[in-house]
Each structure stands twice: as C-alpha cells, then as structure tokens.
C-alpha cells in the first residue's frame, strides 16, 4: 500500500503522514484491529466451508466440534472486533489531530500576523483550520483501511498458500489488482476527468456566484434573463462533460467486479484441477474456494481510501506551506536584557514592505515617540499607518533604516520583551468566544477585580457591564457576535489599558463605527490616554487638537507634521482630509444657499 502516496504531491502528503509518527504504536493497534475484523469475516466463510464439506463426508460428530465452536465464535467476534476497531481508530485519529493542531498553531503563532496576510482574505484561514481537522479523516478513512486490508489480505493468501500454492498466487494477484491497481487508476481517471471539466466548472461557479450575489443589480437593470441564459449555457457545457466522463469514472467499479469474478473463477479452476490430480483434498477445495470468495471483502473499502488520499493532497500542501513559511522577523541569538520603562522609540529613514515583490509600505519614515507624549499618525487608507504599528510590535522587520528603543536597536531585543513594553490594540481586535471577564483578563492574567474594574471604567465600559444580567460573566459569543461594534472597541481599549504598556499603540480604534459612537469613543480614549506615551493611528481626524504631535503619512512617506492648529493653517493633505470629513455644508449652514434647488 506504500504505492498510494505516489499519486501526486508526494512530499506534502508524506510529511503530513509523518506528523503522526509519535502515534505509530496506537496506529498499529488500530490497523491490527481492522485486519482482525476483516480476517474474522474471511475465516467465518472459510471455516464454514470446512464444516459443510467435512460434514458431507459423514464423520463422527466430534470431528466437527471445533469447527462448530469456531464458526460461532467468529460470528460473534467479528462484530465485537469491528466495534473495538472503530473506537480505537477514532481515538488515535483525534490524538493525531491534536498533535497537528498544536504544531500548526505554533507555526502560525511564529508567523502571525505579517506571515498571515495571504490568509486574511476570504475564508482562507477558516479553510486552513478545516484542513487540519481533515487529518483525522485521513487516518480513519485513508490510511488505516489499506493497512488493515494488506494485513488481512496477506493472511488470506498465506492460508491459501498452505492449501494450493498456484491458487494462492492467483488470489494474491487478484487482490492486488482490485485493491491497489484499479483504485489508483480510478483516482487518475477521476482526476483527468475533473481537469477536463475544470474550466467548465469554474466558469459555471463564477456565473452562479455572480447571479446570486449580484441578483439585485441584475434585476434592477433588467439583465436577469441574460444572466440566466449564460448560466444555462455554462451548465449545458458542464453537463455535457459529465456525461462524457461518466463512463470513464464507472470503469473502476466495473473492473473491480470483473477482477473479483475472474480470480474466484481461476482459483476454482486451479483447485478442481488439483483435486483431479490428487494434489488437493475435497474438503480443502471448499475451504480454498470460499476463502478466495470472502477475501475480496478486505479490498472493498480501498477505492474510497485511494480517493481520500488523493483529495488530501491539496490540504497537505496548504498545511506544509504554513509549517515551512519563513519567519517574518529575525530574533537575535543573544538578546539584550528586557528594556526599562519609560521607553523612547526613534525611527530613522525606515523602509518596509511585506514581500520582495510588493510595493514599499513605508518609504523613508522618521518618527520620535518620547515618554509622556501622544502622537497621532494619520493619512488616507493605504498610507502605511498600520505598517508602523507592525514594526513597533515586532510583527515585521524594516528592510532599511533604523528603529531604536531606549537608544538600542529594536531587533536586538527578544520580540516578546519588546511586546511587553510596546502594546495596545491591534487593528480589528479579536474578541474571543468566552466571557467579558476572560476577554479582558487576557491582557494581564494576574489582574485582580479592582484592576479589571479600573480598566473597564477608563474605557467607559463599566456601566454597561454592570447593567448586564450576567455582568462580567456575560458570554460574548463567537467573534463577539453578542456585543456591538462600539462595545467591542471599548473592550479592546480596556484590554490595552489593563496591559499598561510603556508605549501604547491604538490602531484605528474607531474603525467601523457610526459617527456618534465614533465621537464618543474618541473623546473617551483621549481622556484615558492623557499623560501616557501613546501612538494613535487613525484616519478619523476628530479630536486631534488634544495630541502633542500629528504626523501625516501618504504613500509611505511623512508629508506633514505639527499640531492640529499648525497643520490646519498650512495648505496640504491634512487640511484637505479635514475639509472632507467636516463637510462645509454641515459646518457653514446658510452659505451657498442660493445654489439650493428648493422652491
């Protein structure tokens, strides 16, 4: 059965299987239990053949006693063995999955979040997690059945070899053909068929997604009939392909049946001839024929197993891709001792990007963060604001320029030590499927009740928490589904205040909020960060007259810096952004009223 991984993508699948090495003892037990189950079924028919053939010779009843007991025992044993085998194999599959989860988690923790940028879009991360979870299926349905079939089939062939060697040879050839050759060919045929239909399938999927997601647009513009016609045309093409492929796909089942029939026929022919020549007894002939007939039960699950292994190829590729991902940041081999508080951070001529082929996210940035000062980093989306946060949190390395922390190179400290003094709320803070208390306490596991209350109070979250029937123990739901956007951001702010880093970074704390909530939260967070060393990253300019310095980023460069008042006096990006957010019609009612169309 070692031939199966050869189907394609050898390395990733083999490496995925190798992850189960610590469990090989349990896997062996599971395979043995599976083999014993199948062997019991084969033996039941073989021994029954002996019982009947021997009985036909009318011997003394005692001659059959052992056979009678064996038949009954096998009848019960098979069911019990099957039950045990299923429990053992599911247990080991779960254990393997647990191991793989931890391995993948460690790899993801190493590269997150910069290394996960590719996985952020769509549901790719969800799919990766699903990939990891399919490893349990891989063992139960993909690996153990071939192993059990090889053992049980081998035992059947061995038993037949005792009786008549050429017949055993025929049986071995037949089992190999039905259990390995035909399933592997089927997988190849199925893959070819899928490739032939891939273009038609892809086109149909695109059109169907367009038709459903764009249904209102299509209906509104009277284009629904046209869209339906193109879906129907793509569907006709795919159905035509399916029809053509059906015969190729059915070939596997037909061939398996043909091989089974032919093998039994050959074994019987060889057996009858051997009886005729006196090389084989009459009773062993029955045993031989019935054993051969039953032996094909062992290979019955193998076509499905081969298909399963072939399907797992792409999952395995994605998993090994994560395991092999390069480190997004360099860790020093001999890190400096952890930095002291308070911290001073300086960026000089910093350039950074997320990959060698990607554009510069930061292109020569200077920035000073001094103790007790609050700096706001503003600019349009894509200006590189969050990249600054990623650099300071050691999620990403700068490609050029220097970043110093208390005068020493930032990368000379251990990344975890840096994050112990530089922290805050990342963009899109995650709310875990747990209680409010646990979500807050995450920032400082040793925090006591008073600390939690103080942090929640500073983020203006306390009255809301205390108004809830379950208070601090209120579950927030998956992805914080049961809290509003404003509460979620306040929770993240409270978390950051509880962690109390020496340099507090708040990355877009008011994103995705409606205007009144945004204004209220900005007011509160400016009040809560007074006197703290803070870097506030935002595209929302409200309230920035309270910060000590505003740095305006555009396309990775600092284009302006100064106080709110000074920047408003200059002609530049800041004033344009400010004007756009503070609409003239709202600010200056009465002006330009002559242009109004009101009658």
């Amino acid at each position, binding site marked *: 059965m070692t031939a199966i991984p050869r189907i394609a993508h050898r390395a990733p699948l083999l490496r995925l299987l190798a992850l189960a090495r610590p469990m090989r003892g349990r896997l062996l037990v599971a395979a043995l239990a599976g083999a014993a189950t199948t062997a019991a079924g084969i033996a039941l028919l073989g021994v029954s053949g002996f019982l*009947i053939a021997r009985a036909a010779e009318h011997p003394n009843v005692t001659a059959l006693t052992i056979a*009678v007991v064996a038949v009954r025992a096998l009848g019960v044993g098979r069911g019990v063995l099957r039950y045990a085998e299923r429990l053992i194999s599911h247990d080991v599959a779960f254990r393997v999955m647990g191991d793989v989860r931890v391995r993948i988690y460690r790899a993801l923790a190493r590269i997150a979040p910069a290394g996960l940028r590719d996985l952020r879009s769509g549901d790719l991360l969800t799919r990766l997690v699903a990939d990891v979870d399919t490893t349990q299926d891989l063992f139960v349905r993909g690996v153990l059945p071939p192993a059990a079939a090889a053992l049980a089939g081998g035992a059947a062939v061995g038993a037949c070899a005792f009786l008549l060697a050429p017949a055993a040879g025929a049986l071995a050839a037949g089992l190999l053909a039905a259990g390995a050759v035909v399933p592997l060919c089927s997988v190849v045929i199925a893959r070819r068929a899928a490739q032939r239909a891939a273009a038609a399938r892809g086109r149909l999927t695109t059109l169907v997604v367009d*038709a*459903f997601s764009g249904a209102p647009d299509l209906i509104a513009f009277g284009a629904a009939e046209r869209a339906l016609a193109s879906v129907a045309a793509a569907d006709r093409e795919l*159905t035509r392909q399916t029809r053509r492929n059906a015969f190729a*796909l059915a070939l596997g089942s037909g061939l398996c049946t043909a091989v089974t029939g032919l093998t039994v026929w050959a074994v019987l022919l060889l057996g009858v001839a051997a009886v005729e020549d006196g090389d084989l007894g009459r009773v062993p002939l029955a045993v031989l024929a019935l054993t051969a007939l039953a032996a094909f039960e062992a290979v019955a699950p193998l076509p499905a197993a081969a298909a399963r292994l072939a399907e797992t190829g792409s999952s395995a590729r994605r998993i090994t891709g994560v395991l092999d991902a390069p480190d997004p940041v360099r860790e020093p081999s001999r890190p400096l001792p952890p930095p002291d508080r308070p911290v001073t951070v300086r960026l000089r001529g910093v350039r950074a990007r997320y990959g060698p082929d990607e554009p510069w996210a930061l292109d020569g940035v200077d920035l000073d963060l001094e103790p007790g000062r609050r700096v706001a980093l503003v600019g349009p989306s894509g200006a590189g604001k969050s990249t600054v946060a990623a650099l300071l949190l050691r999620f990403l390395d700068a490609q050029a320029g220097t970043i110093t922390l208390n005068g020493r190179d930032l990368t000379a400290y251990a990344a975890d030590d840096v994050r112990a003094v530089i922290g805050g709320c990342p963009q899109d803070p995650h709310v875990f*499927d747990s209680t409010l208390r646990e979500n807050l306490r995450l920032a400082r596991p040793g925090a006591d009740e008073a600390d939690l209350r103080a942090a929640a109070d500073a983020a203006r979250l306390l009255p809301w928490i205390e108004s809830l029937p379950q208070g601090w123990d209120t579950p927030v739901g998956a992805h914080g589904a049961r809290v509003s956007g404003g509460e979620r951001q306040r929770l993240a702010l409270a978390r950051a205040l509880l962690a109390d880093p020496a340099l507090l970074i708040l990355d877009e704390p008011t994103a995705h909020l409606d205007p009144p909530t945004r204004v209220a939260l900005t007011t509160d967070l400016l009040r809560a960060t007074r006197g703290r060393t803070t870097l506030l990253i935002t595209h929302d300019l409200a309230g920035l007259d309270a910060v000590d310095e505003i740095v305006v980023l555009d396309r990775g460069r600092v284009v302006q810096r100064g106080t709110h008042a000074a920047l408003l006096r200059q002609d530049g990006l800041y004033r344009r952004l400010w004007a*756009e957010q503070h609409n003239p019609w709202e600010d200056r009612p009465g002006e330009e009223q002559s242009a109004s169309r009101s009658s």
Partner: protein
Amino acid sequence: MKPLDPRLLRHARAARAFLAAAVAFGLVTTGLVVAQAVLLARILAGAFDGQGVAALTSAFALLLAVAAGRALAEYGGEAMALRAAGAVKSRLRLMLVEHVLRSGPGAVRPGEAATLATRGLDALDPYFARYLPQLVLACLTPTAVLAVVAGADLLSAIVIAATVPLIPVFMILVGLHTKARTERQWTLLERLGGHFLDVVQGLPTLKVFGRARAQAAVIREVTAGHRRATLRTLRVAFLSALVLELLSTLAVALVAVEVGLRLLGGGMPYETALLVLLLAPEAYLPLRNVGAQFHASMEGVTAAGRVFEVLESGPSEPPARPVAAPGIDDARVSLDRVTVRYPGRDRPALSDVSLEVEPGERLVVVGPSGAGKSTLLAVLLRLVEPTEGRTGFGHVPAEQWRRRVAWVPQDPYLFAGSVADNIRLGDPDASDDAVRRAARLAGADEFIRRLPDGYDTPIGERGSRLSSGQRQRIALARAFLRDAPLLLLDEPTAHLDGESAAAVRAAVERLMEGRTVVLVTHDHSWTRGADRVAEIDGGRLTVHRPLAVAS
C-alpha cells in the same frame, strides 16, 4: 430523513427515468448473484463427487459469463447513475438560479446559495451512484435469495427470514436511542471544535499581549477534551453498527452450523448445503452497504431538500409579459400607505408610508441604519412587493418599470468580466464611445485608463481589486449609461475615505441633474441639495422641507 425525496422525482424527469433503470439493473444483478452461487455450488459439489474440469466445462464457462455479466452490470449501472446525477443537478441548479433571478435572493444568503448550487449539489453523485442502487438491491436481493433458499431448504430460509428484518428494525431502534444522546452532545462538540479556529483567528491579539505561547497547551487540552467527549458519543453511536454486524455474521454462522449438522445426519445433499451457505451472506450484504452509505448519501438529500426549500420560499413572480402600460410617461413616484413585513420579523420594515415625488424633484431620505431606508428603495425597485397599501406603479409590469429606473446601490456588485462589460450592465447594446462617456461623467475614466488593460481589464471575483470609491464610480457609470428618468441612490458615499468621497460626490451631483431622484443616506450633508427631505425611523417616514431652508 426520507431516503428518497418525492419532490426530487416530481421536479426531475431524469430522476424518474433513473429509478426505473436502477430497478432493472438491480434485477439483473440479483439474478447474476443467485446464478453465481448456484454455479459455485454445482462445481464444488461436482468436484466433491470426483468430477474433473472436463466434466464441469459448461459450469465453468457459465461462471465466467456470470462474472462478465456482473462486471458489465456494475459498470453500466454506475455510468448511468452518474449521468442521471448530472442531469438532475443541472435541473435543480437552473431552477434555483432562475428562482433567485426572478424574485430576488429573499431569505437566502447569496454565498450559501452559490455553494449549494455548485459544490452542494455534487453530493447527489454518491447518492445516485451508490446509495439509490444499493437501496434497490436491499429490497430485491434478500427477497430473491430468500425465495431460492426456501426452494432448497425451508429451515435455513426461516432463519434468514427471521433475522433479515431485524436489521432495519434494530437500526431504527438503536438510531432513535442514540439520536437524543448524540444531539445533546452535539452542541458541546461544536463549541470545542470551534475553539481552535477562534484562537487562530485571534492570534495577533494574543501575540500583542504575550499570550500566544501559553495557548498551545490550552489547544492540546481542549482537543483532548473534545476527543473524550466525542468518544463518549461514538461508544453509543457505533452500537448500531455493532448490532448490524452481529446480526448478519451470527445469522450466517447459525445457518452454517445448522446446515452442517443436518448434512452430517444425511438429511440434505452437499450441493444444497453449499448453495445455502453461499447465498446466506448475500441476503445481508446489501442491507449493510445501505447502512454504510446512509450518512454520506444523506448529504445529497439534504442539498436537494435545501434547494426545494428555497424554491418554495418567497413569491415566485411569473415572468413579465410586455403589456402596454399606461401612466408611466413621467417618472412620478407615489406610495399610498405602504407597509412591508418580512416573514419572521415582528416589526414591519416599512409602516404606513405615503409619498409623492414629482418628476424632476430631488428627495433625500435620512435615517439611522435599520430604519427601513433599503426597504423603501427595494419597494421602488420592485424587488419587494408591499404587504399592504398601493403604489402608483403597481399596475406596470416590474420589468417595464425598471427600464425607467437607474440604481446606484450602497455596495455595487462587480461581475466577472471586463470593466466595460460591467458598465454595460446599464445598457447592453451601448457603443464603446457611450461607455467611455458614461465613465468620464462618473469620474471613472481616469482610473480605468490606468488599469493594466484599460477598459478591457478583467474585474470581479477573480480580477483586479478595485477600491470602494472606484466600485462606486463604476456603479455611477452604469447609471449614466442607463440614462433613466428616475434615479435611486443608496448611501453613495458611505465607507469612502476623503478623496474618493469628494470624487463620488461630484459625480453624483452631475448624475442627479435633470432627473427625479430618491437618495437614502444617514449622512445629513446630502440634504443640502434636496428639494425635500424625509426622515425615516423605525419604518415610519416623515417628509420635511430641506433642513437648511427650514431653519
């Protein structure tokens, strides 16, 4: 869950034809199974009595023919099943797409429906190719085997007849017993299973707080807890398989012993005993196979069931017939005490709304999210019919009404195709020049020409990504190209950053020139250019003069 959804047979002709053919193939296969057992018994008994290969030539030849026949039946049966599955999938898919395109997505989420129509329906392949044929065999083969065995040996037939029905009975009994227990455990299992995804998604947050490393141990612990809980469930769930297995193997063992002992006493010929022994397992095999494929195949039934649910939900509006429609020469909008209720919601989305918009007038409707703004537009677009009340355009076929409407949605959908194709949604027959002119008016021409292939650049799901501001300007270009007298706009500048918002706002001003406009937004700055302003909250509409003039 029903093994065969009658709606499947009603809607898909291919399914009906398939079922008939599956029965025919089942009959052939059953016949060949019995023939194989008869021939095997004949040969073995012949050899027992000293006959050689020569004497058994005809039996051997027939056995070879039976083997070939079974292979052919297997091959033909599966090929036919796959073709039938393809035809049924195609039929269901088109019914689904047609339904959504006729009456709007309604309660179905687009992503879910698209998955259902493509990958979801693929679950019908194993259902047709494996489950249904086995189901047919499970009915035919035990009956045929029983008849043949009864003809050969009544006592064995009684043993089989007594045990075979026990299999479905026990499957149902054990199933019912375990179902409640399994379902109780299911919530727990789901929560434990979701933990890993939750932690992985929260990794950046964990890392900021230095908690990432500690979580590895938690994952190990939770997975171990998940394993223990699952195995507790499986210990019960696998009982049904145990009972099945025990019944079928024990019955074969019983038959073997009983036949062997009677053979010993000389009460039965060897060939009959062999025939009974060979046929006995065949009576149980198809039942076990059906059981093994039950769960996998139910996915197919579930997918088909979900399609029928969607088809039966929502009003299925008959296709519009071109009728001479009086009274829509001018783009007048009137609603008279219109109320819209969505099924499953307590409060109406629109409540007793009356509204008149004169040709050429600009109405801006402001209100918070969830106030009913989008429902109001959906009524004007005829995507939703009022539950109560009348509209001034209700007598006009929806298709014809929409021809006089241009719509700029909040989040315009871009279709897979070129930029030009996407703009042509406004008018499929528009010339290249007209498309460019519309794009220029929408302020989109400049960025489109900077795209790799200009107007021919593929966009949409698999094409270049456009920013929200650029998408919005494509939607505006569609509306310019449409050149309709009535213009409906939904939050045209929401979620845009400064510079995009300014460009879009300028284009919207151009587009509104000389048209009847209904614009809904939560951004009060739009009220400045309005002839009238309406406020909407909780589904109720109040019409004012423009705010600036009223003050």
